[in-house]
């Protein structure tokens, strides 16, 4: 069992081998961006990029979690990642949607954000990228008062009343 001493199990200890690997460097950051849809997986046959080390040591095997299939992707040489347009673009997008300073640099704030507890469902899927890009950014949803077809406007209270009235909701005021 997982060791604990308190009645409510609140002090249950995790085995160190059961701890999730953290995002600590460019490699793991790229893995994160692939996994959650910010970078697109590419078939192995088509991943020959200039300056890319094709040895197996630098290959990353990633799973396409939505389609239940496995694509082999080629990671770029870690040294060249900071300059890679794909990596930078993906990083920028992640920083933007996460409310981080948009630097395009794998900085500490980005690292912390990538290591936060999160859902395993990708944020973007290939067949939904356009749709999500046009409709689900934080700014878009905050700016539009009503993004859907169902029209809804808050009701204004009619002040022409002949009886003191109060809604017992939290913010009620006596008229």
């Amino acid at each position, binding site marked *: 069992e997982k060791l604990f001493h308190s009645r409510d199990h609140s002090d249950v200890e*995790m085995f160190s081998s059961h701890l999730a690997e953290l995002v600590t460097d460019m490699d793991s950051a790229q893995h994160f961006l692939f996994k959650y849809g910010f970078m697109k997986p590419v078939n192995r046959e088509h991943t020959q990029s200039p300056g890319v080390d094709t040895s197996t040591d630098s290959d990353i095997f990633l799973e396409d979690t939505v389609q239940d299939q496995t694509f082999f992707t080629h990671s770029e040489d870690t040294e060249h990642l900071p300059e890679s347009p794909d990596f930078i673009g993906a990083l920028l997008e992640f920083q933007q949607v996460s409310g981080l300073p948009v630097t395009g640099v794998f900085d500490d704030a980005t690292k912390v954000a990538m290591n*936060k*507890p999160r*859902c395993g469902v990708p944020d973007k899927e290939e067949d*939904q990228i356009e749709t999500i890009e046009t409709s*689900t950014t*934080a700014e878009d949803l*905050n700016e539009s008062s009503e*993004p859907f077809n169902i029209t809804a406007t808050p009701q204004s209270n*009619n002040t022409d009343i002949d009886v003191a009235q109060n809604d017992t909701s939290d913010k009620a005021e006596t008229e």
Partner: protein
Amino acid sequence: KQHHLQTLLRKSSRIKRSTNALWGHAAFSKNILTWRLIGEGYSSQLSVEEQRHIFRLAFRMWSEISPLQFIEDLHSPPDEIDIRLGFGTGRHFGCAQSFDGAGREFAHAWFLGDIHFDDDEHFTAPNAGNGISLLKVAVHEIGHVLGLPHIYRSGSIMQPSYRPQDDGFELDWLDRKAIQNLYGGCGGRFSTVFDWIRKERTAYGEVVVRFNTYFMRNGLYWLYENRSNRTRYGDPVSVQVGWHGLPSSGVDAYVHVWSRETDAAYFFKGAQYWRYDSQNDQVFSEDADGQRYPRLISEGFPGVPSPVDTAYYDRRDAHIYFFRGSLVYRFSIQANKLAATQKMTELFPALTPGDHPTSNLDAAYFSYSHNTLFLIKGASYWRVVGKRARKMKRSLPYNSLLPAREVQQQWFDICDVHTSALR
């Protein structure tokens, strides 16, 4: 608006896995879905009963703001269950995606399918103050199963990263609209709608008058929070729980007779009526003459037929207006007898020819929020022209009806839940 309503209705009969144009996501083609926490997938951290209770609540939260209803199914074969939930660690349940251990990924879900929780995470009960709220994660993952993607908006339950739970998190306006964009809004006829007046004394001894709005549908009711444009969190509630002594199947009408001499609230059902004792939160056992409740409508309101469709008290002329079929029965409180009978179309003429409920109203509702009388039938309501409108435009006939509008465009998210989810 009629076209849009039809579009929403057609969505519910779509075949499974058809896509929604806006999100590009599939949606269930039926509104009643079964779920089960699978036996081999119990968490080691909470009791089974706690886990099931939390999942019941998570499903109910989606049910309260959408036309979907969820049933915990403990008997059907597993492959007939719509949504299966389970806890696992590392490689689990033959799932294509392994869990990563404590930290980072806490759960994942499959569209129109199952939900897996990483049991290496420290899941806790709601408001535990530490760990990861299982309720919050479950609500999020159920959102995926229903067809919602991640949403990067502060306050959205569909944010990908876990936010420590504030006390009592709920589904906000935009999350509601997101799920309703897939499944449509909530509809259904009401038994009655009314504003309940209560008098309270402040700490300074001053009497203040407050009101709350209630919608009733058969044996259920909702408190509607006008300032928030939604129902109270956790509603609906059974009538028998909130209104002691009323029939468990609900009522036909509510009337509040409120004048200088009288302050009495009545509920009507079938051929009977009750007077409600607000001070003691239950029906009166007998009236001032010692006659026990429920009483016959024909005795308390001579000349008024039963059952009635609905009724309301008009303070302008101190009459109760009873509606039944296409007729309106004006009852004088002072004379304690029927004053007149008229066709609804005469008493409340339509401003737009043909745009009128004509008969069989669901509710005649005077709203203190709007200082307006509404006539409600099915999915539509008509606003009765009031004093202010007639001051601005004297040509408007007295008590005429403005064109019909949709109930769910005025009062939002009044949604049924499955009876098994009622407390």
